[in-house]
């Protein structure tokens, strides 16, 4: 779950990481009132889930009320790489002496946390990694040990930050590590991490991705969830707790398990079709879940035929079959359905389907045959 910048800063603030005072606004009047309260100069920043907003005109400095009004007016509603700005963040402008980069994420290959720190901040870290990899000081942290102050000091020293920034940087890195681990983030990134002329170190930006699996132990994550970018279909699927990714073809795909769902998307492509979506109904899917999945697919006007590909492990074939029958009784589905069931209780599932088989509900024994049939029907 990706946070917007202002949400990331609010998240950082909970861990005492210094950020600029600011307010979020959704209308020009709100933005101006916020700017007046904060005191000029302020920066008006577009809140979107995409990089490159500065270049797109989404970040502007305002020295007075008139400028704040003008910039907020221009930025709200601005389209940045397909993301329309609905929220602006107004924050006190900061004097910058130097710009650094700091982040924590999981290094899956090393199975440890990876900390990256660089004196070359403010630009894309990927670009630094490419042109000047030595400018990034990396450390690998064993989660059992955590990040100690001594290690943080040595790390800051290795990154060659301005000595004036050392204490402030060590302090922020220790707090950022806490935010990353205790806050259950997949990524915590500050770019730029700034040194002010006064010697304070400060997070000028915040990029945070939270681990949705940890929502059970955190209050208030629903707020972040509400600002995720989803198309209509994705939102409907999300509301039903389904793993759905919208694609632009004509074959609706429902499968259990991410691997099988991906594989189903692949095989539809390989036999000349074009999938409308990826939809994983997950382990333990029952009749209710299957009915919900069919409703989501049914509401996609591009879908001409539906491919249900189930291999029973936790998901039982008879429950899937019942789900389809239930859904067909509840929703009118125009598109023909091709279904392939194997695995746990597959025979029971096929028997249930056989009672309802028609030219709108076709059962096929293998994935490949089912894919060919559904692609033919979608033509």
């Amino acid at each position, binding site marked *: 779950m990706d946070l917007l910048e202002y949400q990331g800063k609010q998240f950082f603030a909970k861990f005492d990481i210094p950020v600029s005072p600011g307010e979020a606004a959704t209308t020009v009047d709100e933005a101006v009132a916020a700017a007046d309260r904060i005191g000029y100069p302020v920066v008006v920043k577009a809140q979107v889930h995409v990089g490159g907003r500065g270049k797109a005109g989404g970040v502007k400095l305002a020295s007075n009320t008139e400028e704040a009004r003008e910039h907020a007016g221009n930025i709200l509603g601005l389209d940045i790489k397909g993301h329309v700005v609905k929220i602006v963040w107004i924050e006190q402008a900061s004097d910058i002496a130097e710009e650094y980069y700091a982040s924590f994420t999981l290094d899956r*290959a090393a199975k440890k946390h990876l900390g990256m720190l660089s004196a070359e901040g403010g630009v894309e870290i990927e670009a630094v990694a490419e042109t000047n990899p030595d400018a990034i000081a990396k450390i690998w942290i*064993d*989660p059992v040990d955590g990040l100690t102050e001594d290690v943080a000091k040595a790390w800051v020293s290795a990154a060659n930050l301005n000595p004036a920034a050392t204490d402030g940087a060590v302090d922020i890195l220790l707090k950022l590590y806490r935010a990353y681990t205790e806050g259950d983030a997949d990524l915590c990134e500050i770019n730029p991490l700034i040194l002010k002329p006064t010697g304070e170190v400060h997070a000028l930006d915040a990029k945070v991705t939270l681990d949705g699996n940890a929502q059970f132990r955190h209050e208030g994550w629903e707020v972040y969830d509400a600002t995720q970018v989803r198309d209509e279909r994705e939102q409907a699927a999300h509301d039903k707790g389904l793993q759905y990714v919208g694609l632009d073809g004509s074959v609706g795909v429902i499968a259990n*398990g*991410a*691997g099988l769902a*991906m594989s189903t998307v692949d095989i539809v492509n390989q036999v000349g079709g074009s999938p409308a979506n*990826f939809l994983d109904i997950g382990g333990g899917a029952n009749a209710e879940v299957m009915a919900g999945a069919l409703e989501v697919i049914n509401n996609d006007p591009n879908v001409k035929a539906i491919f249900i590909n189930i291999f029973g492990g936790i998901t039982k074939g008879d429950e899937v079959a019942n789900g389809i029958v239930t859904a067909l009784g509840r929703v009118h589905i125009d598109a023909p359905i091709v279904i392939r069931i194997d695995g746990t209780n597959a025979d029971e599932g096929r028997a249930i389907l056989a009672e309802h088989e028609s030219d709108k509900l076709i059962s096929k024994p293998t994935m490949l045959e089912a894919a060919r049939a559904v692609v033919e029907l979608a033509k």
Partner: protein
Amino acid sequence: MAIFVDENTKVLYQGLTGSQGRFYGLRNRDYGTQVVAGVNPKKAGSDVDGIPVYGTVAEAKQATGATVSCVFIPAPGVQSAVLEAAEAGLELVVVITEGVPAQDEAYFYNKVKRDFPGTRILGPNCPGIISPGKANIGITAGEIAKAGGPVGIVSRSGTLTYQALYELKLQGIGVTTCVGIGGDPVPGTSFIDCLEAFEADPETKAVMLIGEIGGSAEEEAAEFIKHKMTKPISAYIAGVTAPPGKKMGHAGAIVSGGKGTAAAKMEALTDAGVKVGNNPTEAGELMVEIVKGL
């Protein structure tokens, strides 16, 4: 022979008294697995269809001689369940549960590796492990696998693992052991761990590897295969047509920054001498050819 588990393996179930644990625990027992105990501190002294339930893993181990645990505990309790099993000295902890926070996975993986090096974790978010005809621990439907070898299977994806077992069975090919390592960011057991074990297992003559987009586990496996494996391998990578930046269900399955693409993984594997299929059926057919040539 099989790797990691066989007919002599005694298994306890953490979460046997829950609905999923009960369903699969009993089904594993029906398959022939030695399901010897359940663990639930609140239900110690009771039983699940004749399987005794103990208060702790240590008690269950002491009373029954179990060496393997299968975990069906809900995600919030997985970390303490795994650590309890490791502390009790179990050799293998199979974590079926999905939705475990990545921070927990990173912590208990490293904790167990450091303090309990004799314990192997499999998963989380995996279908388990089956040595067909000998032991089935987890949620795989045992009847879809043919016993006897000569093929070993290792897979990152649950349902694709079943698919692979099934494709081979249709072709009359048996499996020594099939290991589902799971699709989460910090899998306790890696492709390489399994490849190493299959290479050392005299009954396994060939290996089928099923990967998916995201991360670099397949590339690391390819490197290992190139230098350390003598046995022939077929592979399939799911997500060939997945659009970049979209997370395809699994926490791990995302193509980001041009990394972790199926194409790169397929190329690395091909370069290591692996026969790579474009779909699970094709990978199965490639394995048929490999087995014919053994």
